[in-house]
């Protein structure tokens, strides 16, 4: 559980919150109130809260969990309010905006449920921990992460991967259906009937298969073929999502499979490492260079002085890191059934994260160096 939260909060949430600040401006033309102040407050508090929570779970220290809860509520409560205001005030319309609005609601529900669970663990509250954990997980991965990924995909996949747009009938209904199914899934807490869970889980899995299938189909049918790291990362994420849906459907239809605890780990690896780490890394490899370019361009330099976006992160570095990530995911999935591979899989996964960090730090350093060059040139004129 500590490691799951390290990925979900330490990597996914940090990247998604950061991306939202920029994405609101670029994709839906909204403005977050004093973005630097909000980001500089939320980010360190969130980091501290994550470290406390992970340490509390890892070393079974309730006092650390108690300390983490108010910090999460403060950081993410402030973030949700600032982002929600920006999303409701923008004059823009469209499916991406609605998906982002629903996603921010999903984040709020996830945080509230997570805080309740942490308090229940600390104070021994009599709440249905397992049921609440399942609902917390569904809102975190579905209502927040998947909703945001889908909303961002409607904008970013056609723009950066040069596909046709998502079919309007799909993008219009995906978000509301996902929200409705998650609300129904949450009602498990009141209806313990296994048939009710089955009736909700299968359409939910079908819905995420539809998103993955349509994204792959859009990539396959695009007129100009691009095989950059982002496109391949997205393909890996969507294939992992399909594998997750098939595996989870098998678990729902044959509940005796769930008796083997390794099956749940298999699903966790597919969802976290296979789907979200892949999709987020792929997005960052496009968004970070694009933002570098945009900010350099806004410095007022002539276009010829602004370096090409492709110079921000070398293509070979991104492709190499992608290969290592895919190897790490395959090793992690294999290690579920072959425990002898666990250590090797862990090393490969950690190394792929370190390489990704190095690539992104490189992009920031190149941005700073180009920015200084442009400012120096402006001074000389």
């Amino acid at each position, binding site marked *: 559980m500590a490691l799951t939260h390290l990925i979900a909060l330490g990597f996914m949430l940090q990247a998604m919150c950061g991306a939202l600040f920029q994405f609101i*401006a670029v994709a839906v033309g909204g403005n977050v109130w004093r973005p630097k102040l909000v980001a500089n407050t939320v980010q360190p508090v969130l980091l501290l809260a994550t470290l406390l929570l992970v340490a509390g779970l890892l070393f079974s220290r309730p006092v650390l969990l108690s300390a983490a809860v108010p910090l999460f509520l403060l950081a993410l409560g402030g973030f949700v309010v600032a982002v929600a205001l920006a999303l409701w005030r923008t004059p823009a319309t469209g499916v991406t905006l609605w998906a982002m609005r629903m996603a921010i609601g999903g984040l709020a529900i996830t945080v509230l449920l997570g805080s309740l669970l942490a308090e229940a663990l600390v104070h021994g509250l009599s709440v249905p921990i397992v049921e609440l954990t399942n609902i917390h997980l569904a809102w975190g991965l579905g209502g927040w992460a998947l909703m945001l990924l889908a909303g961002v995909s409607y904008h970013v996949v*056609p723009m950066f991967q040069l596909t046709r747009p998502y079919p309007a009938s799909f993008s219009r209904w995906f978000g509301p259906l996902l929200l409705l199914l998650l609300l129904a899934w949450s009602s498990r807490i009141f209806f313990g009937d296994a048939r009710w869970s089955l009736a909700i889980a299968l359409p939910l899995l079908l819905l995420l298969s539809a998103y993955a299938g349509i994204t792959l189909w859009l990539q396959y049918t695009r007129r100009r073929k691009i095989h950059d790291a982002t496109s391949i990362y997205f393909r890996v994420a969507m294939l992992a999502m399909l594998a997750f849906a098939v595996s989870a459907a098998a678990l729902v239809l044959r509940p005796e499979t769930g008796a083997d605890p390794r099956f749940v780990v298999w699903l966790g690896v597919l969802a976290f490492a296979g789907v979200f780490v892949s999709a987020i890394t792929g997005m960052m490899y496009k968004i970070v260079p694009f933002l570098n370019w945009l900010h350099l361009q806004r410095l007022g330099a002539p276009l010829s002085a602004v370096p090409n*976006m492709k110079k921000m992160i070398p293509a070979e570095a991104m492709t190499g890191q992608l290969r290592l990530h895919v190897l790490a995911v395959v090793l992690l999935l294999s290690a579920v059934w072959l425990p002898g591979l666990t250590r090797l899989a862990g090393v490969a996964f950690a190394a792929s994260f370190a390489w990704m960090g190095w690539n992104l730090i490189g992009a920031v350093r190149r941005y700073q160096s180009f920015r200084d060059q442009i400012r120096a040139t402006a001074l000389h004129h």
Partner: protein
Amino acid sequence: MTTVIDGREMQPPEPMERTMEALDTLAEGDDLLLLLYCQPHPLFSILSKNGYAWSEDLRADGTREIRIRKLPG
């Protein structure tokens, strides 16, 4: 006169670079038609800061027609 930039099969930021190059030579009364599959909000903010007006139409196939012209004065 209308200059057309079909950015639907270009990777960002190429459509924006081409648009800004074309705007440099756009005469008053002429317009620039940009075709994209998304709404270019960063371009919109540059246009409004630099005295350009634009209108948008959405075609059935998802193409956005963005028509840009220079504001008088």
